[in-house]
């Protein structure tokens, strides 16, 4: 697994996976739909799959002394590595954003608060489940997986923004708050989000392994 992960970083990873980590700084923009930070992260996974296909990575990897299951697991390790890195990179920028602009509100979307991180984690887990198993059905067709993953992210962002922004009530007031006291109460949202991310990604991996096992290379 260590060798396959090395192969992923050395050969397979698309430069945007590194580059888009910088986009964590987008939360510094006072009025911006912050979910886009993690949307870009999902997009970079698509680019990585696209690059793997164009580089015929699966032909190269298929000839190595590794099982197909490990090939899938190494890709998931890479995806999780970059998604968690994106979450971690965004934290200091979010803190800076909250401190530099404590009173202003973001009319373009959710505030970069604790709940935002939990909701973003769920979004990435959902993307993993809606994109990667479909990709591993063929390991080369990307249109339908992109449609599936892209649709999920779009619908998810719309619902999350609606709940936190546009449907007035206690829930939106809670989710959209950047009051330090409320943010403490948002911690369970973050933890549940991370747990859901883990479960969704695990389900995606199991499904991808099953699908890829059936693929003739």
């Amino acid at each position, binding site marked *: 697994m260590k060798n396959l992960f090395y192969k992923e970083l050395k050969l397979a990873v698309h430069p945007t996976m590194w580059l888009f980590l910088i986009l964590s700084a987008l939360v510094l923009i006072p009025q911006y739909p912050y979910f886009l930070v993690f949307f870009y992260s999902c997009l970079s996974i698509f680019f990585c799959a696209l690059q793997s296909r164009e580089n015929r990575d699966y032909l190269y990897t298929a000839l190595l002394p590794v099982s197909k299951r490990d090939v899938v697991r190494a890709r998931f390790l890479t995806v999780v590595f970059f998604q968690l890195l994106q979450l971690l990179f965004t934290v200091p920028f979010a803190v800076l954003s909250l401190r530099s602009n404590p009173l202003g509100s973001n009319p373009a979307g959710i505030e970069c608060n604790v709940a935002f991180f939990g909701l973003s984690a769920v979004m990435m887990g959902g993307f993993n489940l809606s994109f990667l198993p479909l990709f591993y059905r063929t390991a080369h067709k990307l249109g339908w997986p992109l449609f599936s993953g892209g649709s999920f992210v779009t619908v998810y962002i719309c619902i999350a923004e609606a709940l936190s922004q546009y449907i007035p009530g206690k829930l939106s007031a809670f989710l959209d708050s950047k009051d330090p006291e409320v943010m403490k109460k948002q911690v369970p949202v973050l933890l549940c989000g991370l747990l859901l991310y883990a479960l969704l990604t695990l389900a995606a991996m199991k499904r991808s392994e099953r699908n890829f096992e059936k693929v*003739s290379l």
Partner: protein
Amino acid sequence: MTVLSVEGLCKSYPGFALDHVSFSLEEGSIMGFIGRNGAGKTTTLKSILGLVHPDSGSVKLCGVDYAAHEAECRRQTGILFGEVDYYLSAKLRDIAAVTRRFYPDWDEDYYRQLLRDFSLNDAKRVKELSAGMRVKFSLAMALAHRPKLLLLDEPTSGLDPVSRDELMGIFLSVVRDGGRSILFSTHIISDLEKCADTITYIKGGRVLHSLAVDEFRDAYRLVSGGTEELTEELKGELIGLRTHSFGFEGLLPTEKCADFPGLCAEETDMENIMVHIEREKEA
């Protein structure tokens, strides 16, 4: 000792099927795997490696079930599927740096020597290499971990005659120490005349012959004669019959030659045998 044993390999696709493909490869020998395009050579090789899941059949490497011990068997196998056509923008040294990590037996000195022998500059990118040089790079990586079995699919396609001759020399030197064996598919039969010990001939997904090269050559005679000598009985026996204004030419199984005394029956080369056998299909 049998290095590779393939038993009853079957795989069905719409319009094509591998039909109980069986053969075995002995230690220290080179087997040519021949057949025309689409005969099932690559599908057989991919089925051996598990890249294609066969419907039935078994593959053993040195007595060990290949599918059940895939990773271990792969470590003992050097694989080449044509030229390197992956990671075209990557430098050779980067691909090699990744590849060597998967093989505990990777011999870096041997790899460096192969690069020198093949005049390969590992600072170059794959896309900067010619087709022949890409095959050589692929071969260097397949050889560098000194595998027991080399499984090569069309290694000589796209190479000029000099490079092909060089490769045949390399194959012979690889098996000379006795510990290694080569199975390579090709439709360039003249390559096999130079180095193969045995021939496995596949046609339409079925193994037609799996014999020593001499036995394969001796199995058929090229028969020719005048129009009056072409009897109905002979027509029924001839393979790849071709008639012309002066007479005919065709292939006859050697054991049938005695049934037709007086005919001009000559030894012929493997390429001629294959051409006649394949022509029969079209007739």
